């Protein structure tokens, strides 16, 4: 099995109101100088056939029209 982490984020240029809300909350907590906050999603999974991860991302985990994704292999040790 291969351990995989998929990072999914809103495409550049798409308004991310969730990121904006987080950014606006920070100064009230004393965190100054933080900008360009974007909120995405992370999916962890284990796959027996990691060659199909990209297809799985394109078809379900991300919507390529609005989201970019990045696949990170976290553990490809054979078990």
């Amino acid at each position, binding site marked *: 099995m291969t351990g995989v982490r998929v990072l999914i984020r809103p495409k550049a240029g798409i308004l991310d*109101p969730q990121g904006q809300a987080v950014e606006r909350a920070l100064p009230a907590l004393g965190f100054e100088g933080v900008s360009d906050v974007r909120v995405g999603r992370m999916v962890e999974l284990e796959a027996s056939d990691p060659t199909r991860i990209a297809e799985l991302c394109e078809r*379900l*985990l991300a919507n390529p029209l*609005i989201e970019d994704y990045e696949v990170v292999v976290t553990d490809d040790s054979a078990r």
Partner: protein
Amino acid sequence: MRFGVVRFPGSCDEVDALLACRRFADAELLWHGDRSLGGVDAVVIPGGFSYGDYLRVGAIARFSPIMAAVAAFARDGGPVLGICNGFQVLCEADLLPGALLPNTGLRFLCRQVDLTVDHADSPFTRALAPGDILSLPVKHGAGRFYAPDDDLRGLEENNQVALRYALGENPNGSLNDIAGVTNAAGNVLGLMPHPEHAAHPLSGSTDGGRLLQSAAHACASNARAVA
């Protein structure tokens, strides 16, 4: 003429849609696990939270067994109406262009809005005229219509924008005030507002009924043309 209203786990507007359709034609519920549409003349994908809207709105429902039949029906020119979550499902299924993102205000909205009819070529709008104003309720958390610049230009040029929020009424940050779009062929319409909640006089507006009545008429005249 018979409407089929698809029920997914997590749908919540399918009964209102069924009863609204029955004001103008026959209508039956279709189960998401079925692989056939049972010979209906028009399909309604209703609002709700199909499969809990886990992952993304509409993302999982598009893989329901019945969606292959809906896609084939749409490809053959059959009238398909996606309302709210149904619109989101049809976008995810690539039967409609664009995507629905969380409202810019991040709040779930529930209110009556005015819409203007922009292009009236779909079976659901044929009985209306460009410029007509409709009063329909919206109730959604993710209704912000988005399409990349080039796609958006294409939609406008191909007259695929069926409905827009009236001036100053855009509740969710939708690009170009878009409330409803069709596919390129015009037989599939998706909209965020709820025509099924505005079909009976008791609901204050009956403007939503006009969309269903329009489809009922379009199917009936097609049938006459074939006969």
